[in-house]
C-alpha cells in the first residue's frame, strides 16, 4: 500500500511547488511552463485515479493547448510592445 | 404541442447554420436569427397558455432514459412564463440591436442567439451540472456581447465579468461535486428526496451551490463587477442582462430554494433586502445613466431575491407578488436601457433631449412610474400584497426596509424624471430615432401597461376598482390636439356628469368633500378658459388628479383608497412640474408624498393584521398596534396637509405652479389630506399612548403649524408664496379643530375647510390674474393696482376680510365656533397659539392688499388692463356664495351640524332662526350684517353727499412740507413691510425645518458617496469581495 501512495504524494508535492513557481516567478514564460507542468502532473495523477479519459484530455488540452495559447498571446503582446 | 426541446434545437441549429453560410449577406442571417428566437418564443407562449388552461407540465427526457440517469427538462407554469419573457426580450433586443449586430458581422448574431438559447435551458433544466454548463455558456455569451462596442471600457467590463463569473463557477463546481458525492445524483428532485442537508457537510455542499447562484444575482457587497458591466456594455446588451438573464437566474434560485433548509431562506431574504436598500442608497449619488440603471436593476433583483426567500410566509400570494414585480421590473428596465441607448447621452442632465420627441418623454414617465409601483402598473399590486403579507406575518423590519429602499429608489428616479422634464435643452444635439430602436421601447411600455391592467382584472381585490375615470383620461389624451376651450368644456362636462352620477350615494363628509373636490374642480377649470392655444398634456393630468380625488371619496376598501391616493399624487406631481422653475419643488413634493404614501401603506398593512376583508371600516376594529397604526396614517395624511414638519414642499409647489393650477393644488388637493384625517379619526376614535392622548399632540401640531404658517406668510415678498404659507397656516387651524374630537371642534374645522376652499381659490385666481398681467410675483414691484384692476381688488378685499375673520363676513362664524369649542374643551395653551395665529393672519392679509393694490401706481403699470374675464368669473361666483353664507350663516353650519349630530351628539348648536346659541354664547350673523351694513351705508352716504362735488385728485398730487416726491416708486412703501414686527419676532421664523431637511438629504448623499467608494474598479477587489462574501455568509450560517 505504501508504494501505492508514495507516487501520488510525490506528484502532489511537485504540483504545489510548480504552482508556487507559476505564481511567484518574475519571468512570464517560466510561469507559463510551470502551469503547463502542473496540468501534466495532474494528468499523471489522473492515471493513478483510474481515469484514463480525463488523463488524455488533461494532457492534450490542459498542458498542450492552453500553454500554446498562453505563449501565442504573450508573443502577440511582445510584438505589440516591439512595434511601438 | 411542440416539445420544448425544440426551443434548443431550433435556436442552436440556426446558430450553427448561420455560421455555415458566412458568405450570405447579413440581412438574411439577421432575419434567420430573429425567426429562430420568435419560434422559441411562440413555443414557450403556447406552453404557457396550455398550462394556464390546465394542461399537465411537459417533461422532456434527453437521451431516452428517465431523469436520475440522464438530464431532463421541465416545462412547468413558471418555466413557461420565464422562457416566454426571455424569448420576448431576446426578440425585442434583437430588433433593437439589429443595426449594430449587422455592423459587427455574423459572429455577434451567433453569440446573441446562443446566449438566448442558454438562458432558456438554464430555466428548464432539472440537472445541476447541466445548469453549471449552460450558466457558463450564458456568462461567456454575455462576456462576448459586452464587447459589442469594442470600447476600452467595454473590454474592461468584459474582463471583470469573466474573472468574477469564473471564480463563482469554480465555487459552484465544488458545490456540485460534493452534492453529487453526498446525494449520489445530480437531479434536483432526487437531491431533494435524498435530503442531504441533515448533516453538516451536505448542507455546506448545498450552501456552496446556493451561494454561487446568489452571487450570480450580484448581491450588494459583491456586485462591483455587475455594475461595471451595466455601465460598460452597450445599453441594448445591458437591457438583455438586467431583464432576461436576471429573471433566468432568479428562477434558478427559486428552483433550488426547494433544497434549502429554513435558516438559509432567512439569509437569502436578508441578502436580498441588503442588496435592495444598499444599491438604491448608492444609486442616489450616480450621475451616469447606465450605471444608475445598473444600480436600480440590481436593487430590484435584490427585492425579488428577498421575495423568493420569504416564500413560506407569502403563501398563496407568492406567485402574484413575485410575477407582478418581476414583470414590471422586466419591462421597465429593458425599456429604460433601450431608451438610454436611443439618447446615447450618459449624463442624467442631458436627458432633457427627450423633450425633443414628447412621446419619448411619455414612455420614460411610464417606465419610471412602473418601477416605483404606481397604480396602473403591476408592481403596485405586487407591493401592496407584499406589504400586507409581511405585516400579517409580523416581519416589521423587513417591511420597513422594503419601504425605505423603494423610497430611496424614488429619490433618484424622480430626480432623473425631473431633469428630463425641466433641464434646459438648448445646446443638446438633435435626437434621431431609428424605427428598430423605438419599437421595442413602445412594445415594452404596452407590455407593462397591459400586464398591469391584466393583473388588475384577475385579482379579486383589484377587480372592484373603478376604471371609468381612467378611460376618460385616455379619451382626453386622444383629443389632446384640440384647442383649449373645447377640451375645457369636455372636462367640465365630464366632471359634472360624474358628480351627477355619484351624487345620490354621497352622504355626510363624502358629500361635503365630494362637492369641494368636484364642484370646486369645475369652478377652477372655468378659469382655464383664459388660456389660448392647445395647452398640450394639461387636461389628462388634471383629470388624473380629479380621478384620484373622486376615487378617495368612493373608496370602500383600503386598497381602493390607496389606489386613488397614488393616482392623485401622480396627477398633482405632473401638474406642479409644469410650472417654469418648479423642478426642485416638484421633486420635494413627490418625495414627501411618496414617503407619506409608504407610511399610509405601512399603516394599512398593520391595520390588516388579523382582518379578513380590506374594507375601510376595519380601521375601527384594529387589534394590535392601534396607536402605531394611527400615528403612521396620521403622519401619512399630514404630509398632504403640510403640517409643520412636512410643509417645506408646499410654498415652492404652489408658488411655481401655473395660474389656474395653484388654486387646484392649494384649495382642493390639501383637502384630500383633511378628508383622510377625518376618515381616520372617525374610524379609530381617540388613541392613547400610555396615558398621553395623541389628539393633544395633534392639537399642538395644528397650533404650531397655524402660527408658523401665518408668521412666514407675513414676511414673504412673493405674493403666491404668501398665499401658499397662508394655506399652511389655515390647514393648521383645521387640524387644530379636528383634534378636539368634539361637535363644535369638528363643526369649526369642516366649515373652515369649506371657507378655506372658497377664499383660497378666490385669492389664488385673483393673484394669478395680477401676475398674468404684471408679469412678476414680487409684491414690492406692484402697487396702486386698484385703479387698473378694480374688480380683482374687490374680490381680494372680500377674501382677506374672510381670512381675518372680521365680523360681518363668514370667516367670523368659523372663529366664533372655534372659540366656543376651545372653551368647551379646555386645551388653553394650543388655543393661545391659535388665537395668536388668527391675529397674525390679519397682518399678511393687509400686506397682500396694501402692497399690491394700494399705494402709488408704478410707471410701467400705467396701461395694465383688468384681469382676463375668465379668471374673474369664478371669483365672482365664489363671492356670491361667500355673501350667501355670511348673510345666512345657518345655511352652511346647520347641514354640517346635522351631519355631525350622530357622531358627536352632545355640545351641538341649537338654531333659532339665524341666531346660533352654543353652550357659552350666541351669534346672530344676520342681525350683525344688517346693523353694520346700516351704519356703514348711512355714514358713507352722508360723507359722499358732503363732498359730492370735490375734484378728483391723482394720487401723486401730494406735496408735503414744501417738497414734492420725485418718483412714484420711492413713495410706495412695500418692501419688508412689517420690518419692526420682524425685528421683534423674527427669530420665530428662522428656517429651522428647511435646514433640518436639507441636512438630512446632505447626510444621505454623504453616506451614499462613502458607501459607493467600495467599488474602486480593480478586478482583484471585486474577486476579493466575492470570496469574502462567501466566507462571511458561511460564518453567519454555520
Amino acid at each position, binding site marked *: 500500500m505504501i508504494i501505492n501512495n508514495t507516487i501520488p504524494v510525490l506528484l502532489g508535492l511537485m504540483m504545489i511547488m510548480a504552482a508556487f513557481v507559476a505564481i511567484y516567478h518574475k519571468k512570464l514564460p517560466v510561469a507559463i511552463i510551470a502551469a503547463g507542468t502542473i496540468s501534466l502532473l495532474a494528468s499523471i495523477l489522473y492515471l493513478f485515479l483510474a481515469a484514463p479519459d480525463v488523463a488524455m484530455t488533461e494532457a492534450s488540452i490542459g498542458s498542450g493547448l492552453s500553454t500554446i495559447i498562453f505563449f501565442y498571446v504573450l508573443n502577440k503582446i511582445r510584438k505589440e510592445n516591439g512595434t511601438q | 404541442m411542440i416539445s420544448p426541446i425544440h426551443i434548443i434545437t431550433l435556436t442552436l441549429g440556426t446558430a450553427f447554420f448561420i455560421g455555415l453560410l458566412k458568405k450570405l449577406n447579413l440581412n438574411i442571417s439577421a432575419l434567420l436569427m430573429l425567426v429562430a428566437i420568435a419560434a422559441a418564443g411562440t413555443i414557450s407562449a403556447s406552453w404557457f397558455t396550455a398550462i394556464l388552461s390546465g394542461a399537465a407540465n411537459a417533461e422532456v427526457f434527453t437521451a431516452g432514459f428517465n431523469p436520475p440517469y440522464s438530464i431532463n427538462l421541465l416545462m412547468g407554469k413558471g418555466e413557461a412564463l420565464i422562457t416566454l419573457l426571455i424569448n420576448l426580450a431576446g426578440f425585442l433586443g434583437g430588433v433593437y440591436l439589429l443595426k449594430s449586430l449587422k455592423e459587427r458581422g455574423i459572429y455577434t448574431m451567433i453569440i446573441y442567439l446562443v446566449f438566448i438559447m442558454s438562458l432558456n435551458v438554464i430555466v428548464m433544466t432539472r440537472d445541476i451540472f447541466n445548469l453549471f454548463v449552460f450558466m457558463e455558456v450564458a456568462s461567456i455569451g454575455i462576456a462576448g456581447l459586452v464587447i459589442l462596442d469594442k470600447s476600452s471600457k467595454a473590454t474592461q467590463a468584459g474582463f471583470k465579468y469573466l474573472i468574477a463569473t469564473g471564480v463563482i463557477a469554480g465555487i459552484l463546481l465544488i458545490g456540485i461535486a460534493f452534492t453529487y458525492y453526498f446525494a449520489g445524483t445530480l437531479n434536483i428532485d432526487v437531491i431533494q428526496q435524498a435530503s442531504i442537508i441533515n448533516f453538516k457537510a451536505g448542507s455546506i455542499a448545498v450552501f456552496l451551490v446556493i451561494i454561487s447562484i446568489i452571487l450570480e444575482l450580484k448581491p450588494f457587497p459583491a456586485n462591483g463587477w455587475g455594475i461595471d458591466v451595466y455601465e460598460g456594455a452597450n445599453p441594448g446588451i445591458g437591457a438583455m442582462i438586467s431583464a432576461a438573464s436576471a429573471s433566468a437566474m432568479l428562477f434558478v434560485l427559486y428552483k433550488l430554494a426547494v433544497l434549502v433548509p429554513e435558516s438559509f431562506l432567512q439569509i437569502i431574504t436578508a441578502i436580498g433586502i441588503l442588496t435592495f436598500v444598499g444599491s438604491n442608497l448608492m444609486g442616489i449619488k450616480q450621475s451616469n445613466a447606465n450605471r444608475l440603471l445598473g444600480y436600480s436593476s440590481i436593487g430590484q433583483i435584490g427585492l425579488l431575491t428577498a421575495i423568493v426567500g420569504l416564500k413560506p410566509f407569502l403563501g398563496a400570494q407568492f406567485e402574484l407578488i413575485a410575477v407582478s414585480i418581476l414583470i414590471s421590473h422586466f419591462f421597465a428596465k429593458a425599456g429604460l436601457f433601450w431608451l438610454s441607448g436611443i439618447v446615447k447621452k450618459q449624463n442624467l442632465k442631458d436627458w432633457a433631449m427627450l423633450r425633443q420627441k414628447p412621446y419619448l418623454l411619455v414612455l420614460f414617465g411610464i417606465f419610471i412610474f412602473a418601477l416605483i409601483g404606481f397604480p396602473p402598473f403591476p408592481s403596485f399590486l405586487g407591493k401592496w400584497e407584499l406589504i400586507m403579507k409581511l405585516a400579517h406575518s409580523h416581519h416589521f423590519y423587513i417591511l420597513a426596509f422594503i419601504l425605505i429602499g423603494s423610497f430611496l429608489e424614488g429619490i433618484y428616479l424622480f430626480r432623473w424624471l425631473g431633469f428630463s422634464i425641466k433641464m434646459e435643452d438648448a445646446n443638446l444635439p438633435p435626437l434621431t430615432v431609428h424605427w428598430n430602436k423605438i419599437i421595442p421601447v413602445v412594445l415594452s411600455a404596452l407590455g407593462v401597461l397591459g400586464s398591469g391592467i391584466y393583473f388588475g382584472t384577475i385579482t379579486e381585490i383589484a377587480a372592484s376598482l373603478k376604471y371609468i375615470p381612467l378611460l376618460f383620461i385616455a379619451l382626453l389624451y386622444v383629443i389632446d390636439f384640440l384647442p383649449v376651450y373645447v377640451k375645457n368644456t369636455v372636462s367640465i362636462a365630464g366632471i359634472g356628469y360624474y358628480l351627477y352620477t355619484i351624487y345620490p350615494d354621497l352622504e355626510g363628509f363624502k358629500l361635503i368633500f365630494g362637492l369641494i373636490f368636484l364642484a370646486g374642480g369645475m369652478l377652477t377649470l372655468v378659469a382655464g378658459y383664459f388660456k389660448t392655444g392647445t395647452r398640450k398634456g394639461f387636461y389628462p393630468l388634471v383629470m388624473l388628479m380629479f380621478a384620484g380625488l373622486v376615487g378617495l371619496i368612493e373608496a370602500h376598501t383600503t386598497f381602493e383608497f390607496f389606489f386613488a391616493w397614488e393616482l392623485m399624487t401622480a396627477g398633482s406631481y405632473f401638474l406642479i412640474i409644469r410650472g417654469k422653475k418648479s423642478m426642485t419643488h416638484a421633486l420635494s413634493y413627490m418625495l414627501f408624498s411618496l414617503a407619506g404614501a409608504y407610511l399610509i401603506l405601512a399603516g394599512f398593512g398593520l391595520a390588516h393584521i388579523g382582518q379578513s376583508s380590506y374594507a375601510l371600516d376595519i380601521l375601527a376594529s384594529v387589534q394590535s398596534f392601534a396607536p402605531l397604526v394611527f400615528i403612521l396614517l396620521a403622519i401619512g395624511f399630514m404630509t398632504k396637509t403640510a403640517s409643520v414638519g412636512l410643509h417645506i414642499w408646499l410654498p415652492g409647489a404652489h408658488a411655481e405652479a401655473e395660474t389656474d393650477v395653484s388654486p387646484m393644488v392649494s384649495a382642493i388637493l390639501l383637502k384630500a389630506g383633511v378628508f383622510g384625517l377625518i376618515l381616520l379619526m372617525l374610524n379609530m376614535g381617540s388613541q392613547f399612548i400610555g396615558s398621553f392622548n395623541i389628539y393633544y399632540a395633534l392639537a399642538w401640531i395644528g397650533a404650531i403649524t397655524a402660527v408658523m404658517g401665518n408668521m412666514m406668510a407675513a414676511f414673504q415678498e412673493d405674493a403666491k408664496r404668501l398665499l401658499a404659507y397662508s394655506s399652511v397656516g389655515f390647514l393648521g387651524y383645521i387640524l387644530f379643530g379636528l383634534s378636539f374630537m368634539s361637535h363644535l371642534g369638528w363643526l369649526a374645522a369642516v366649515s373652515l375647510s369649506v371657507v378655506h376652499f372658497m377664499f383660497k381659490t378666490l385669492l389664488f385666481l385673483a393673484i394669478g390674474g395680477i401676475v398674468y398681467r404684471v408679469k412678476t410675483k414680487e409684491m414690492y414691484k406692484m402697487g396702486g393696482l386698484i385703479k387698473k384692476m378694480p374688480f380683482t381688488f374687490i374680490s381680494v378685499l372680500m377674501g382677506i376680510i374672510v381670512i381675518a375673520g372680521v365680523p360681518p363676513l363668514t370667516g367670523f362664524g368659523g372663529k366664533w365656533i372655534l372659540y366656543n369649542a376651545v372653551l368647551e374643551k379646555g386645551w388653553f395653551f394650543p388655543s393661545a397659539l391659535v388665537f395668536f395665529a388668527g391675529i397674525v393672519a390679519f397682518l399678511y392679509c393687509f400686506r397682500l392688499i396694501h402692497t399690491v393694490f394700494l399705494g402709488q401706481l408704478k410707471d410701467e403699470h400705467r396701461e395694465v388692463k383688468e384681469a382676463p374675464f375668465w379668471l374673474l368669473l369664478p371669483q365672482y361666483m365664489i363671492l356670491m356664495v361667500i355673501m350667501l353664507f355670511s348673510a345666512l350663516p345657518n345655511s352652511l353650519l346647520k347641514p354640517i351640524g346635522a351631519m355631525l349630530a350622530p357622531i358627536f351628539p352632545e355640545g351641538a348648536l341649537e338654531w333659532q332662526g339665524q341666531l346660533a346659541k352654543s353652550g357659552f354664547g350666541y351669534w346672530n350673523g344676520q342681525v*350683525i350684517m344688517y346693523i353694520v351694513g346700516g351704519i356703514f351705508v348711512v355714514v358713507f352716504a352722508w360723507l359722499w353727499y358732503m363732498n359730492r362735488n370735490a*375734484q378728483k385728485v391723482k394720487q401723486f398730487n*401730494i406735496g408735503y412740507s414744501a417738497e414734492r416726491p420725485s418718483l412714484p416708486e420711492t413713495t410706495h412703501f412695500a418692501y419688508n413691510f412689517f420690518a*419692526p*414686527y420682524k425685528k421683534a419676532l423674527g427669530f420665530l421664523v428662522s428656517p429651522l425645518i428647511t435646514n433640518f431637511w436639507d441636512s438630512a438629504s446632505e447626510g444621505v448623499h454623504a453616506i451614499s458617496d462613502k458607501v459607493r467608494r467600495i467599488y474602486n474598479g480593480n478586478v482583484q477587489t471585486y474577486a476579493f469581495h466575492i470570496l469574502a462574501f462567501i466566507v462571511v455568509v458561511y460564518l453567519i450560517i454555520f
Partner: protein
Amino acid sequence: MDFGFKHILYALLTVFIVLNYGLILQGIVRKIGARVGRRYGIRWYQPYIDIIKNYAKRSTITHGVMFYIAPVFRLTGGIGLLLFMPVIFGSEIFSNFSFAGDLVLVLYFQFFGVLGMALGAAEGGHPYSAIGVSRGLSQVTAFELPLTLGVLAIAMQYQTLNITEIVAAQQGGFLSWTLFTNPFATIAIMFSFLGAMGRSPFDVVLAPQEIPIGPPTEFHSGLLGVLQLNRAIFPAAKLILFMNLLFGGATSWPELVVKTFLIYMWSVFVGTVFPRFRVDQSVRWFLVVPLTIAIIAIILIRF
C-alpha cells in the same frame, strides 16, 4: 329678542348719550393733561367746537372711494362695538343689540376699525400713512393676544361669553367684581387696555411728533369730523366694555360715568409718566409681561 323698531330708537339714544359723554371726557382729560403741565388748557367743550367747525367745511379734493372708506369703517367699528354691548345692566332700553353677538364678536370688532383705517390711509397714496399703518397693525396685533387670553380666562371663570351674564355675575358689592375674583386676568387686560387706548407709551402710531403727516393729518374737513366723532365714541365704548368685564358693569348712568372716568384715568396716568416705546419694543413688551400674567390667569382658572 325680537328685532323691534323701538330697539333702533333706544340704540340711537344710547349712541347720543355716549357721544356726548365721550366728547366731554376728551375735553376734561386734555384739560387735566394741561393742568399737570401747569398750563391752563382748553375749554372743556372744545371738542364740540372742533366737530362743528369740521362739519361746516367742505373738502375740495378727494382721493377716490377707498379714501372715504377709512373713516366710515372706523366710525362703523366704534358704533358697532357700542351697539353690541349692554351699556346699562338691567335696563331693557340701554342693552342695545347685545342679544345678537357676544364677547367674541365685540373683541373682533376692534379689528374692524383698524382694518378700515389701514385701507383708507393706504389709499391716500401717501407713503408715510402706509408706514403708520404697518406700525399700527403690528401694535394692535401685539396687545390683542394678552387681551384675548384674559377674556378667555374670564369666560372660563363665568362659563359664558354673554356679556350681560358676566355683568350679572359681578353684581352684589364691589368684592364680587372680576378685579377681585380674577385679579391676574384683570391686570393682563388692563395692560392691553393701555395698548388699545393708544395713549403715550404706545402712541407711536398717532403721535404728531413721530410722523408730521400721519394718517389723521391726511384727512380733513368732513372726513376729520367723522374721525373725531369716532375718537369720542370708540374709547368710550372700550371703557364700557372693560367696565362690564372687570368692574361689575353699571346699573345707572352716573355709576357708568364715574367708573369709566376712573378707568380712563389709569391710561392717562401711565401715559404722562412713561416715555414712548418704539414699535418692536412695545410688541416685545406686550408679548412678555401681560402675556405671562394672562397665562397665569388661565392656569389659575383651570385648576
